[in-house]
């Protein structure tokens, strides 16, 4: 980080400091409740004053989030949270800016702003609630609904290829991407904290269940019978192991990742990849982000956390250097500069 803008809170904060007095109106059993809990857990730990947190959202179930957490908050219009947050962060870089958004909000109507905020590497944190459905409009398919998915606007199954969020983020030159399940609060807390500490655009994709319109949409990864074989919990510096007894691992063979079993077919522990979330080259992170059933597990945890200059820092630095170099210090100077003439 070029400038450390964290203003440490004078007294230690607790989750009560962030609890809102508004009634939380998500459906009982919705994965969003866990995300709210996680934010309340993590915010007191980040080190900002409570007045320096800001939530921005678009439209959708996810985007009611700002009303339910006691920070400065702005509930925008559909798809535009990233654009609004850009103005917030540039206007006051001292804020810890968080975006609550969904798969439709960010990858359909707001796709343009989503890729560009990531490309610029603005220092904000995006919590992307991916439930693979439009919930608030009552069950239409989204850009992440799996092909063939039956929804109210795809009664015969969708014929659209879905986005893999990680692919879009990495393709947009993302510097931070993490993925967690809405049922794993512990990992969510860890990832939120890391995202807050990352300088640049952090995208946290939460595989969220919509109990009403897309129940068990992530079942191929989350169900008891499959979860050991289809969840890879990444940790920086550790080997990429999974399976009931951590007997499986990820190996790079040629240009492809493969799931292998240690001790079988001559595979040894040394063959299993070690996770380096800080690697600047996104090649492996991109492959890890796109893994999933039926061949491979879904990668969870922080997949990428690479350090690059942030947009907001560069904006500030440019203004500072322009200030130092310019002879024009105020509007009166500017008005009188250049070609003028006096009538006496």
């Amino acid at each position, binding site marked *: 980080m070029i400038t450390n803008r964290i203003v440490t809170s004078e007294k230690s904060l607790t989750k009560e400091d962030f609890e*809102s007095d*508004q009634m939380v109106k998500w459906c009982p059993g919705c994965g969003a409740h866990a995300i709210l809990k996680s934010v309340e857990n993590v915010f007191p730990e980040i080190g900002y*004053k*409570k*007045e*320096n947190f*800001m*939530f*921005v*959202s678009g439209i959708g179930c996810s985007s009611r989030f*700002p*009303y339910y957490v*006691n*920070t*400065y*908050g*702005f*509930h*925008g*219009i559909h798809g*535009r949270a*990233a*654009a*609004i*947050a*850009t*103005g*917030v*962060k*540039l*206007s*006051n870089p*001292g*804020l810890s800016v968080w975006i609550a958004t969904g798969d439709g909000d960010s990858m359909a109507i707001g796709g*343009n*702003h989503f890729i*560009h905020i990531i490309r610029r590497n603005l220092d904000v944190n995006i919590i992307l609630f991916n439930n693979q459905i439009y919930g608030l409009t009552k069950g239409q398919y989204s850009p992440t609904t799996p092909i063939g998915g039956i929804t109210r606007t795809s009664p015969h199954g969708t014929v659209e290829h879905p986005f893999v969020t990680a692919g879009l983020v990495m393709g947009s030159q993302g510097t931070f991407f993490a993925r967690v399940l809405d049922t794993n609060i512990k990992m969510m807390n860890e990832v939120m904290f890391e995202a807050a500490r990352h300088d640049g655009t952090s995208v946290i994709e939460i595989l969220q269940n919509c109990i009403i319109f897309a129940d068990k949409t992530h079942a191929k990864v989350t169900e008891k019978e499959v979860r050991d074989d289809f969840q890879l919990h990444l940790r920086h510096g550790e080997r990429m192991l999974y399976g009931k007894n951590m007997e499986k691992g990820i190996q790079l063979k040629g240009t492809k990742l493969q799931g292998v079993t240690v001790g079988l077919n001559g595979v040894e522990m040394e063959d299993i990849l070690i996770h380096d979330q800080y690697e600047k080259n996104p090649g492996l992170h991109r492959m890890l982000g796109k893994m999933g059933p039926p061949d491979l597990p879904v990668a969870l945890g922080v997949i990428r956390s690479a350090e690059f200059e942030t947009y907001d820092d560069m*904006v500030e630095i*440019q*203004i500072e250097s*322009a*200030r130092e*170099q*310019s002879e*024009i*210090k*105020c*509007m*009166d100077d*500017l*008005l*009188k500069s*250049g*070609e*003028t*003439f*006096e*009538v*006496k």
Partner: protein
Amino acid sequence: MDKKSSLKEKESVVIKFAGDSGDGMQLAGTLFSDTAAVLGNDLFTFPDYPAEIRAPHNTLAGVSGFQVQIGSEKIFSSGDLCDVLVAMNPASLKTNLKWVKPGGTIIVDSDAFTEKAFEKSGYHSNPLSDGSLDVYKLIRAPITTMTRESLSHMNNVTARAADRSRNMFALGIITFLFNQNIEATFKFLEGKFSSKPLVLEINKTLLAAGYNFADTIEAVESTYKVPKATLKRGIYRNISGNVATAWGLMAAAERSGRPLFLGSYPITPATEILIEITKHKALGAKVFQAEDEIAGICSAIGASYTGSLAVTTTSGPGLSLKSEAIGLAVMTELPLVIVNVQRAGPSTGMPTKSEQSDLLQALWGRNGECPAIVMAASTPANCFYYAYEAAKLSMEHMTPVILLTDGYLGNGSELFRIPRVSDLPEIKPPIASANDKSYKPYKRHPETLVRQWALPGTEGLRHRIGGLEKTDISGTVSTDPLNHQIMVQIREAKVKKVADIIPLQKIEGEKSGDLLVVSWGGTEGSIRTAIREMQKDGKKIGHAHFNHIMPLPRNTGEILNSYKKIIVCELNNGQFLKYLRTEFPEIKYLQYNKIQGLPFFTGELVDKFNQLIEEKQS
């Protein structure tokens, strides 16, 4: 002083520089105007260029023009027909001949009138020799040949580079024709090309060569002198409407203590504002060139919530894209200035041509009951003051303001008497104090109905707002039926109450009587010129030119009721007229509309107004 030609004094002259879009006509015109300004003339310029950056050489589509009127009296427009046309090729002659006064002077680069070139522009014979220009004073100057010859002593200049500088030779001729001081133009060139000594030398050499050529040949019958204008004391500069808009916003930021944030997407003819503000990072302006028009305005709304003087600049199609977000700013009651430099529509329309056809969109083009302040600048220089006022009203009344200018104002320029920032009206945004226990997001000032601006980072004011309907005072989300009606009415009343503080509408000319001309926005100059002309002939006529549109000045009804005939003149199909009919349905209106991407001409207005006056008498 020239010995061979006579010297004629003129109150005002109109000169047009026309050539291929790569011929440097904009630069020649700008240099001429700046020199005229320094020498004490009042002026008004208008560049007229095609949308294509470099259309094919010698075609009609590629003609780029720059028109300037200079005068010894106040100049209100760039003029209708020109006294002098500089035509660098047949295509520019063909496109512009209709704008030359009978008997006017035409200066051509005779080298450019090859058979191939005049045929390409649709001429069947050479206009220089077929007699078609007999009613004009034609000056044939072999500009290309002489440009090359003038630079032949410089070994490091290619023929191509020389040809690109033909504009300076042409400007030299004009400089002589108008008895301008060549040293003054040299100074501008020295400023402009201080880091490019070779370019500077080429330009100065050619300017002098053109000047000397005109002095030597017999073709110039007379030269002209436009005496100094009698201007109010002060320091002046030549300024375009887009630069004046940018500076007005920057001045408002400085005066209010709120940092300027501009979120914009490039669009003709508004881009110059974005370019201008970006130059001045040293004054703290934050400029975000967004990925699209929507991101432009949404980033500005985010910056506004966070405490900046937030601005987005655009033109018609961009305003359409911003509509939903303007509604968000209305609902969240945040300050936001939306500058719309109007162009001819609908859709992509004629991007480089001017029109006033976004008025109804600005007033009503949003979902829901969605009132915003709408105002319009009316001259290039007063864009500064209206941009400043738009920012002031926006912040002090916590509401979006749509400021309408247009391509004619934005690209046109005139003299601007420089103000001191401390002389501009104070701006006092209603910022909420830290730890104010009584703060509620939608608690309002009892008279103005303005809510407070609570900035993120401030202790004790954490709150949430957004596009959902709010409960009166507390600002929590509400779908209560009666509350919605109250909130709709409050938002409307808040904007209407701005009429209490904006100035009364002024009348130029007769305060009551037979005929009132009503207009708004960028047409002020051309209509004012027509009215002045008629007043000189002793005609009784009044003119109300509106800059405040929503709300209208509080004496508007009284004014409209003081005349027998009212004619509303607009560069659209009657939008302000429709608005006035809604607000004052009891009044009978006449209308005069022009929708050609061109400004009004004095002649057509005078004819129309005279006809209306005579109708009454017969």
